[in-house]
């Protein structure tokens, strides 16, 4: 089946299978920032935006992206670089495998929550797992990025 979608502001037409998931479609078209780890909706590494909402691309059927606006971290070069620098300055990144999905969630949170408390930040990001860092560095980085430190 053919789908037409907007990916990072570019309209594309892709051929997808009925049971294909968006993470696989995106990766097969070169969007390699989209990582896949658990593939069971648990880790958040595959997070992208669909019409401005963060979604787990490993669990969204590609067909459902038809007519939608998909954004991956490649769509936010400026914001991603700014936040990544804070992450690295705070020692909040080791292997970096979780970072693209994590940053997509942080950007979604920035849009949704005004001056979030620490509890709200932690709760919003529960769905993004990181095997390396222990989260405290990430929390410091987010507070600096949002100016709520």
């Amino acid at each position, binding site marked *: 089946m053919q789908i037409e979608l907007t990916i990072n502001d570019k309209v594309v037409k892709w051929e997808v299978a009925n049971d294909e998931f968006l993470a696989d479609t995106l990766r097969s078209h070169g969007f390699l920032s989209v990582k896949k780890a658990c593939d069971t*909706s648990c880790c958040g590494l595959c997070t992208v935006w669909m019409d401005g*909402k963060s979604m787990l691309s490993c669990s969204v059927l590609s067909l459902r992206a038809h007519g939608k606006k998909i954004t991956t971290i490649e769509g936010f070069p400026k914001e991603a670089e700014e936040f990544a620098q804070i992450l690295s300055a705070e020692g909040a990144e080791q292997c970096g495998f979780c970072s693209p999905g994590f940053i997509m969630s942080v950007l979604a949170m920035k849009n949704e929550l005004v001056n979030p408390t620490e509890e709200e930040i932690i709760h919003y990001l529960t769905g993004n797992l990181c095997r390396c860092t222990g989260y405290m560095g990430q929390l410091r980085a987010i507070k600096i990025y949002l100016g709520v430190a």
Partner: protein
Amino acid sequence: MFTILDLVQPDNLAEAYKILSDKRNNTILGGCAFLKMGKKRINTGIDLTKLKLNYIQEKDGFIEIGAMTSLRDIETHPLLKEHYNGVLPQSVRDIIGVQFRNGVTVGASVYSKYGFSDLITALLSLDTEVELFKAGRMPLTDFLAKPKEKDLMVRLWIKKNMRQASYLSFRNSSSDYAVLNVAVSMLNNCWTIAVGARPSKAAIAISASALLSLEGATSETIEEAAKRTSEELSFGTNTRGTATYRKALCRALVKRGIMEVLACKSN
């Protein structure tokens, strides 16, 4: 991983139901998060996207929730935050993460009668009816008691009233399935205590609820209702907790739930 041979997006409910009943392996697709964990070979996947079942609205004295509404919409919708002390948003807020709740649907969550369900327990404490395409509209309690039949969940109807409610769950780690969950509510001094993740599906503690309703909530009756709930409902053992542990948790959570409802009432 599941496979889908063919995929359709019906324009109306009747067509969707007809395709569903045509073949045993024809399957409705919700958010697909749960389906994806299995190995089902789906003949025709029925995508309900075109049916506009993604909404929460007030109608005829009810809050109506379409089957394709996401759990995140349940969590954030002002109508649900304003009613029943926000018991429905509270019940779903610990299910995995925001991105997950943006994708999974109310219809699938209720239709599947998952034992671990957080949402079903909270809905059970309210005046909830489900509407199925074939079987029609019925109280949630009747739906849960019914043997599973192939049908299409269309929407939920929750009576709009001043019911005060509270939801509590106990998890071994955040975003894991609940070891036990409890919802307590009260309307005009009539109480409902619902317990889920026992680990079997949620049920109402009828005798304990009646005790509170008849005798009122005093420190003695609250203790007795919590004890009675843990005795009248059955509990099982799985990797998350033993039956004995669940029974003990039940008593503590029910007591806390009743106290929370009383605190809402006095506010």
